[in-house]
């Protein structure tokens, strides 16, 4: 066909299913480039079910580039990523009943790189909520839900013991109910610092630091209950709402200038989620709060800690809320510390595995991955020659300490930044 400068009119183009030119068969689906490519060879009902949920829409936006797979912390220890979830769902695998549903830690690294903004932080809670309503919940996660509903904390400890840790802090820890006056700082301690033995170490350290700085603070004591945000991300939205309503009412009973929280998950809850339920107060994670007081804190840090320290960015402080510098500034303020960065740090920080309900899915996740995320992380810390893995999220101390033991890296110390500051303040 002679083609001049004029365009070929579409009706002039013919397709030959079988065309032989000079003895060569060049037939084929050459015309496919002009038409919709056939991608829906499978039943897409399952994908549509997810996309029909409020929050689940963006799973259908995935175009399969796979950037998420490269950064997904779960894929590094297993076979799982948002792209894989999308593809499996497209092929008719039911996410609502698949073990894949419980592996996402909502660490947000996929969303950071996704060109289509496929948002697992919305998708996972939406699908999980349906699974929870159907009663398809891994037993250990369900236990955490039950304990939270019954006792106000996922550890299943009695509410009346919530402030018992303060008895051994060695400094006064005022309780707002007894104080009967406004305070500058309402310190929301959190469930793990209140009950977990290693979390309590961080809580006691914080109490000593606040006292040394002369901070006017108070805690809620037995009136404090879990923030519920991780339970929400794990699919129990009703439990989260129940706790949010209770907590907002409790906070409202007291006059305080600002709230300081020990944990990034609580920080995220109070900063980004509670306002949707009517909360109206300022909140800071303790790392930023202490950096504000660094001029007065620095002279108290007298004892050198001559160790090589690396820092693990908590997903809910870093990627979710953009705070990367405050924890590092605190560590640099401690004399003697040599701060080394791991390869996966800051925006690309690895995940400890505890977010989005992962804290209460340890055995389940272990069954579906080659190693725990926390185990991968402590190995990385050791690869970079660290003596200390410093953290500032109450989920992490126990996770990483267990992982250091289970991987034979007992020598690696795991310390909350609060503990390191407190140690440096001691004579």
């Amino acid at each position, binding site marked *: 066909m002679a083609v001049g400068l004029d365009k070929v009119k579409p009706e002039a183009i013919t397709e030959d299913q079988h065309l032989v030119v000079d003895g060569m068969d060049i037939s084929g689906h050459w015309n496919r480039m002009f038409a919709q490519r056939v991608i829906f060879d499978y039943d897409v009902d399952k994908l549509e079910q997810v996309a029909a949920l409020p929050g689940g829409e963006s799973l259908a936006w995935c175009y399969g580039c796979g950037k998420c797979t490269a950064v997904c912390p779960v894929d590094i220890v297993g076979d799982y990523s948002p792209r894989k979830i999308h593809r499996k769902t497209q092929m008719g695998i039911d996410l609502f009943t698949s073990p894949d549903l419980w592996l996402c830690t909502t660490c947000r690294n996929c969303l950071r790189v996704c060109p289509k903004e496929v948002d697992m932080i919305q998708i996972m809670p939406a699908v999980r909520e349906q699974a*929870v*309503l159907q*009663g398809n919940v891994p037993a250990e996660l369900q236990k955490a839900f039950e304990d939270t*509903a019954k006792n106000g904390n996922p550890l299943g400890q*009695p*509410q009346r013991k919530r402030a018992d840790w303060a008895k051994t802090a060695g400094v006064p820890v005022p309780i707002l109910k007894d104080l009967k006056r406004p305070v500058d700082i309402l310190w929301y301690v959190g469930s793990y610092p209140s009950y977990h033995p290693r979390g309590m170490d961080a809580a006691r350290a914080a109490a000593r630091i606040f006292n040394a700085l002369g901070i006017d603070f108070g805690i809620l004591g037995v009136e404090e209950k879990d923030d519920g945000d991780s339970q929400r991300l794990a699919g*129990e939205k*009703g*439990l989260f*709402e129940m706790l949010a309503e209770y907590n907002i009412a409790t906070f409202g009973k007291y006059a305080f200038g600002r709230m300081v929280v020990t944990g990034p998950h609580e920080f995220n809850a109070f900063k980004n989620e509670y306002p949707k339920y009517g909360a109206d107060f300022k909140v800071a994670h303790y790392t930023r709060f202490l950096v504000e007081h660094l001029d007065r804190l620095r002279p108290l840090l007298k004892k050198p800690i001559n160790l090589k320290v690396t820092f693990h960015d908590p997903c809910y402080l870093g990627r979710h809320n953009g705070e990367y510098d405050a924890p590092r500034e605190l560590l640099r303020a401690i004399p003697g510390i040599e701060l080394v960065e791991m390869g996966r740090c800051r925006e690309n920080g690895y995940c400890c595995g505890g977010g989005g309900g992962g804290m209460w899915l340890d055995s389940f996740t272990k069954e579906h991955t080659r190693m725990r995320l926390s185990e991968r992380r402590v190995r990385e810390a050791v690869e970079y020659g660290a003596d200390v893995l410093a953290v500032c999220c109450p989920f992490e101390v126990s996770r990483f300490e267990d992982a250091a033991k289970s991987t034979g890296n007992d020598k690696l110390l795991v310390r909350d930044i609060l503990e390191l500051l407190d140690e440096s303040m001691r004579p």
Partner: protein
Amino acid sequence: MNIVATLKQIPNVTDELELNAAGTDLDHDALQYVLNEFDEQALEEAVLAKEAAGGTVTVMGVDTTGELDAALHTALAKGADRAIKITGDFPRGTASHVQARLLADAIQGLSPDIVFAGVQAADDRDGQLGPMLAAHLGLPYVGVVTGVSVKDGQAIVHKEYAGGVMAEFSVALPMVVGVQAAHQPPRYAPVSKIRQIAKTAKIDEVAGNADGQGAGSTVRRMFKPQSAGHAEIWEGSPDEVAEKIAALMDDRGLLKRP
């Protein structure tokens, strides 16, 4: 099958218990109330019976706290079909004899095939709610039950005795069962589901009257446990301590000599 499960709210015993000024009762207003754990077991067994044999489960309780709705909504979320609340001037800590009277009156008109109640409650002095319910209704009762299966107008009931002895009874329905433990652990009702149900569910209210019904006993004095004796710690090497243990056991007649 027409199944009824009774619920009772009791003080949360994981809290610090406070006594009233007279030292005759708990300070009920200072306490948090939760569902009696044996009633949770009874509800589970009721829902399991419904799932196995078909029918409906009606849950009911005396509202002594003003907070019974939450427990009823939870029961509906777990699979109960209808909820009944008995109202009236019944304060926290209303005696189980009074509650049994009120429950029996409300159950009477329902003509149930089987009634499940918790075998006891932590605030119950005599554990008689189930037997009294059965007596008021004129029905047979089996207590300390760990499993029920219903077929052809009969219930096969597993009862637990002391010393690990189990018995199986065959009872003609209708009957009342005092549940020690359901044959499966109680299911979890997601709070999401409970909150959904709370928005739409209807709770039937029945005015209760228990005039003239006594508590069966009166409390003269209530007090916190007093430690009677103290443990003695034996020091020494393992061999020495073993000698002492053997001597003590011999002294108490616990050793059998060949």
